[in-house]
């Protein structure tokens, strides 16, 4: 009974948060509409889901309320540069040869170095961008949560779970028993459990933080291809290093396939090798696309208000009711997606690893 009421509280809190998204995004959209300039929905959406050198919170008239972030660059011609992002004045000015690429540039929105002949060269960019800050915040949160929980298990494991521990323990048990153990098998699952648990909670917390509109939430971290790429690469490397002899033999010489598919043209091995790479690739794209799409759709509904508002104020107000309802719906859907995608990434990683470490051959199960 207590559990149910607690879950209800959490859900309603998250609901309120998604409601909060509504207001903050509304502000942001209003801020992005300079007088006389036409409202550009795709620019707004792209700016929102892309990375940024500053953490924009709101804009009142000409005043930008944003948190400046440090820029760290390594140029092949002029070495290391470190400065604060306010020096670039939101991309309108250049600073010691660096500026943010404009919309027509190949590196739109990224810091570029202007060479002597006027061409733009991208330096090695180690800047602490909005996404990097979000990454650090999420990691700090994860460490705080799990180290405090771990302390309770270290003190006395026989005590009943308390506080956030009672909320996370079933999740940890679910990942351990129903995801990892069932996919990899009783003998080998323990080796991969730390990575899969870390990946699950990392993706989950960043998905949820992406739904929170105010700082430090709101960055589209798990909807960034670089982040999902690293996660998928870790799974890929894990598979390559832990693949059993059977797994590699299966790639070279798939059993149960007619010989003429292997000789003289190695068609099956070719398909199998592609399969090795598509698995992590799919992991990378799925997470990226799902989270980014959610953000795009929610923002798209908001943009509708302003697109109609430009035609007539009444149309704008009329559409806003529908838009807000739809965005609340999307917010709830995204909440579900946040959990589902974290689960799916972990489950598929576990399945791929399980298939790779398995000693006996399994037929007709490739899992694409």
């Amino acid at each position, binding site marked *: 009974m207590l559990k149910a009421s607690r879950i209800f509280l959490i859900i309603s809190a998250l609901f309120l948060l998604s409601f909060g998204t509504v207001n903050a995004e509304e502000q942001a959209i209003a801020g992005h509409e300079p007088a006389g300039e036409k409202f550009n929905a795709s620019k707004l959406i*792209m700016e929102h*889901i*892309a*990375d940024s050198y500053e953490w924009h919170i709101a804009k009142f008239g000409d005043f930008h309320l944003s948190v400046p972030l440090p820029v*760290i660059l390594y140029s092949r011609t002029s070495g290391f540069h470190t400065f604060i992002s306010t020096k670039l004045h939101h991309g309108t000015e250049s600073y010691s040869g660096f500026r943010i690429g404009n919309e027509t540039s190949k*590196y*739109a*929105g*990224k810091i570029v170095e202007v060479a002597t002949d006027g061409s733009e060269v991208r330096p*090695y*960019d*180690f*800047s*602490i*961008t909005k*996404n*990097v800050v979000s*990454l*650090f915040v999420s*990691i700090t949160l*994860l*460490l705080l949560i*799990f*180290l405090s*929980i*771990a*302390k*309770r*298990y*270290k003190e006395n*494991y*026989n005590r009943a779970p308390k506080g956030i521990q009672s909320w996370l*323990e079933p999740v*940890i*048990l679910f990942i*351990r028993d129903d995801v990892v153990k069932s996919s990899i098998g009783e003998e080998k699952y*323990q080796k991969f*459990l*730390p*990575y899969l*648990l*870390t990946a699950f909670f*990392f993706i989950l917390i960043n998905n949820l933080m992406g739904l929170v509109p105010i700082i430090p939430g709101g960055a589209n971290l798990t909807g*960034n*291809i*670089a*982040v999902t*790429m*690293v*996660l998928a690469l*870790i799974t890929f490397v894990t598979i390559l290093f832990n693949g059993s002899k059977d797994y590699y033999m299966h790639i070279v010489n798939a059993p149960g396939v007619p010989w003429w598919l292997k000789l003289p043209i190695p068609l099956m091995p070719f398909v199998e090798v592609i399969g090795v790479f598509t698995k992590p690739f799919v992991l990378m794209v799925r997470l*990226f696309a799902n989270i*980014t799409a959610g953000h795009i759709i929610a923002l798209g509904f908001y943009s509708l208000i302003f697109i109609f508002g430009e035609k007539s104020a009444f149309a704008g107000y009329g559409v806003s009711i529908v838009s807000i309802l739809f965005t609340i719906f999307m917010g709830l859907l995204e909440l579900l997606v946040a959990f589902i995608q974290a689960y799916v990434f972990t489950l598929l990683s576990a399945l791929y690893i399980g298939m790779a470490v398995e000693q006996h051959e399994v037929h007709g199960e490739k899992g694409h």
Partner: protein
Amino acid sequence: MGLVMPDFGLLFWMVVSFSLLMWLLKKFAWKPILQGLAAREDSIDKALQSAEFAKQEMLKLQAGNEKLLKETLLEREKIVKEAREMKDSIVREAKNQAVIEANKVMEETKAAIVRERAEAVNEMKSVISSFSLEIAEKILKEQLSDNKKQKDLVSNYLENIKLN
């Protein structure tokens, strides 16, 4: 398309910080948490097993108690029965012994009586004979003092012989 091109900087930070996160969590969070969970499951398992064991033991003990009780009752009955038998046999033996003793005493007494009587009769006989001799002597002395009487006597004897 900037959206699907991974940023070098973010890739770098992600690799560094995720590796750090994974290492820290693995060492300081997952290890104690997973060990704690496993230990708890183990202890619950053991507790259930020992409870089951204790239950079995209890049942065994109960059965043992009942058996013991039954045995004790049987033993008691047996002892009582034996005691009764012993009592009976002692009484019977005592009776027999008493009868035998009594018989023996009776026989001895009878034998003594017979012996005593025989002795008494013998003694009486000798006393009577000596008395009769004395009497006869006195009578003879007295009788023979006068002739007439001697003659009577002799005639008397003769008469008696005749009669015979």
